């Protein structure tokens, strides 16, 4: 399902805007990441896309069709094509995963003949077969999260909306989540996922949008965004045998910023940000060698989404 947000806005009091003038185009079958700090308006935007909240301004177009304004709860046909996992989704603790899925399958009005096979299918897909008859209250947090996502996919939606799905998950749970989303992508489902932990998203998403204070800061394909914001940012990793003090003096002279100090493969290592591009780095390298620093490798670090986000945040603050 392709989604288009056109000048979407939400205000609760007519003065302050939780989301303002948000315009996005999310291609069908892609994984779209919505990034921003807490209070940026991600959840509000997702709730509007999920049709559980009415926008104050603008509209949302689903595969070329616009949801009726002020009719969020009458869009049941559209609802059947959406799986939405809001934030803080609790389970019924006394229900087993199979019962829980059956309940939601019926709420999505799946026919009885289709429901039981669908339950079997998602239990297998989400590795919950072994716990199908255990009360949900006894499941681990990762399993519960898988069950919640399974619930969203039970009725085979063409749009899956996940609001902070990795919140509170341990590293293993996060890996499970990535694996699951990979499978979902293979089925051609459009996924919109929000997070304030950027490492979860930058190699998973095809496209991202960064929001701050209810507004879109930047949006597009991950690689394009990184390239766009990397032009004036040169970060290198420098490994050397000895001469750490001398290296610092040379770097200070060239006003290079040491971002991180550590070890790499048993050798001292510095991550430095230089002002002036590749030419400046060549000069610094020559001076380091001249100063007796035994440099082993110099490699440029490609920016990550997190760096772009930090940079944008700094710009906003400044």
């Amino acid at each position, binding site marked *: 399902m392709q989604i288009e947000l056109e000048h979407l806005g939400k205000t*609760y*009091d*007519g*003065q302050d805007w939780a989301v303002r003038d948000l315009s996005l185009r999310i291609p069908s079958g892609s994984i779209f990441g919505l990034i921003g700090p807490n209070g940026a308006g991600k959840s509000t935007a997702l709730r509007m896309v*999920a*049709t*559980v*909240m*009415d926008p104050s301004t603008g509209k949302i177009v689903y595969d070329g069709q616009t949801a009726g304004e002020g009719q*969020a*709860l*009458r869009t*049941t*046909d559209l*609802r*059947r094509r*959406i799986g*939405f*996992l*809001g934030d*803080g*989704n*609790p*389970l*019924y603790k006394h*229900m087993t995963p199979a*019962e829980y899925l*059956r*309940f*939601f399958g*019926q*709420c*999505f*009005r799946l026919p009885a003949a289709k429901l039981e096979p669908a339950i079997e299918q998602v239990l297998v897909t989400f590795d919950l077969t072994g716990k199908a008859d255990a009360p949900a209250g006894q499941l681990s947090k990762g399993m519960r999260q898988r069950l919640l996502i399974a*619930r969203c996919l039970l*009725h085979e939606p063409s749009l899956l909306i996940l609001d902070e799905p990795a919140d509170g998950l341990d590293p293993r749970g996060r890996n499970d989540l990535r694996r699951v989303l990979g499978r979902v992508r293979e089925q051609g489902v459009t996924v919109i996922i929000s997070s304030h932990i950027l490492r979860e998203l930058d190699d998973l998403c095809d496209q991202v949008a960064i929001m701050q204070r209810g507004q879109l800061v930047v949006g597009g394909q991950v690689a394009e965004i990184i390239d766009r914001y990397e032009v004036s940012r040169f970060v290198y990793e420098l490994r050397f045998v000895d001469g750490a003090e001398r290296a610092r003096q040379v770097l200070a002279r060239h006003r290079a910023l040491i971002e991180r100090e550590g070890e790499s493969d048993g050798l001292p290592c510095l991550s430095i940000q230089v002002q002036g591009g590749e030419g400046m780095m060549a000069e610094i390298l020559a001076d380091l060698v001249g100063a007796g620093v035994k440099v082993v490798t110099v490699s440029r670090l490609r920016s990550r989404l997190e760096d772009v986000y930090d940079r944008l945040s700094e710009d906003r603050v400044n």
Partner: protein
Amino acid sequence: MHHRLRELHAACLPFVTRALRGSMRRRATLASALLVVGVLLMGAFIGRASTNTAQDLRVSLGLETNRWEREQREFTIFARDERERAARERELEPREGTEPRRSMTRERVVDAWVLLDTVSGPHVTPPRSYQELQRRARALRDARPDLAPDDLEVRRSYAHFSWNDSDDLQRLRAIVEAQLRPHVVIYTSPLDVAMTIRLIGAMAGGLFLLLLTVIAPLWVGVQLAQELHENTLQPLTGTALTARQLVLGLVAGPLSPVAIVAAPLLGLVLLAAGLAGRMLPALGMLAMGSAMAAMLVALAMLGALAVGRQRAPGIVGIALLGLLGTAAIAGIAVGLNLSVDLLGTVSVLPGAGPVHLASEAFVPRTHLSGARAQELDLRLVIATIGAVVLAALAMRALERRVGGTHGEGALRSSEAGLAALVLAILAVAAVPSRADFGPLFFVATALALVPLQLVLMGRVPGGDAPPSLRHIPVGRLLAEHASWLGLVLLVAFMAAGLPERVGPGAVFGVVHLGWAVMVTALVTLRATARPTSIPLKLWLMVCLGFVMIEYVSGAVWCLESPSGAMLFPMAAAHPMLGFVHVGMFVWIPISLLRGLAGPRAGG
């Protein structure tokens, strides 16, 4: 129609499946079977058993006269079994040449002889129709001088007999007919099979009404409170069910186990009513009970929606049980003993009407006739229709609350007006029909004022905005509230008539009453529309205290013309308190209006 049924099925299926999953259905069925067996056994035991316990139960339920009274009246001695009967019979046999032994049987015979002696006295003159009976009693006494007790003179001084007392006469006749030899019979229940069936019907009906008007609303309310408290309702709003279907499902799910338990009881009620030939009142009971249950379920859900997020489901359950239980107990007490003065209460006590109809169907107790019976029937019909209308309106409000489409209030203006009209009619119908303009008029108005606050709550804008950011159109809501009260007064005047004379003090009365009504509405708005802290809640309670003082003052000023010192009644206690009263009169509305002013103060 088919489409609607399909939609209803789609709404109920997930919730009913959830409610009856696993062993739930089995448990409900087992409970149902146990209840039916219990009712049948208990009914049969009370109706037919001859044990002391069964007899005590019959006596306490008013189904049988006390054993001693019955033995006296019928000149009979009840034995538990054949052995005891034979022993008593032996005691009655004369023994040649020996002094008679003292025994209970002998005492009964001596008591009977003393009664004959009492009515046979030379100065006793019975009415003409009983002179033959007196002659026979005298002859019988004279025939058995051996039964005269030693303390006859003492007994004579305590003896009492009235020719106008039917019990005394029945006893005398029984003694005379039995020729001073009491019947000794083995005790059996006086209730026949038909009465036992009625008794079973009454018990099944009582339990059915209990399930309908207490358990069903309680269970639905608690389940909804749990959904809210655990935030499990939110994901449901994103499914393919509409808000209306969600509400129907939230009702149908918790009700399904209750329905399984209630269904056989309903069968018993109908069967017993059919056998007893009392189908009409039984059907009336079912119709009225169902209407009341629908209203109570909807109100319990609204209550759960209002507090379920902040309060634990257990607390909500205890509160609901307290309210529903109190209403049920009051309903049973009134419904079983409806008198002329109380018949209006069937319009405001949800349990009173159905209990009265259940009693009419199986064990009639109330004897209203003619115009009074018609008045009662009218009120029963009004209460039933009112409950259906209020239930429908409450369901609309629920639908909007659950769906988050209550930005303009959970009730539309016209719906609120209709609710106010129904409440006005119910409140006025609760007042005895003999009442004219007087204190009861003000009681009825106060009676309507309380539920009108619920209607006002339904008009407060909601939606997805936080309460502190909502725009509250205070002026418009106060005007609507005033118009509803006008409707109440209109209905009340139509029913009770206009006051015959209006004194000059009535102007002050109207001012007091107006203040009380306005502040009541402001307190409701303040408590509903904006966040409240504990100090604020205390302040609102103080405000309500002054509302009561002002309301009573207003009523007094309208009905009488008290002295000027009563303009602010607290001044009568102490001048300083009078100043406090005046200060509060001014400050309370101002403080409430300030509290309601939001980001953009409405008016």
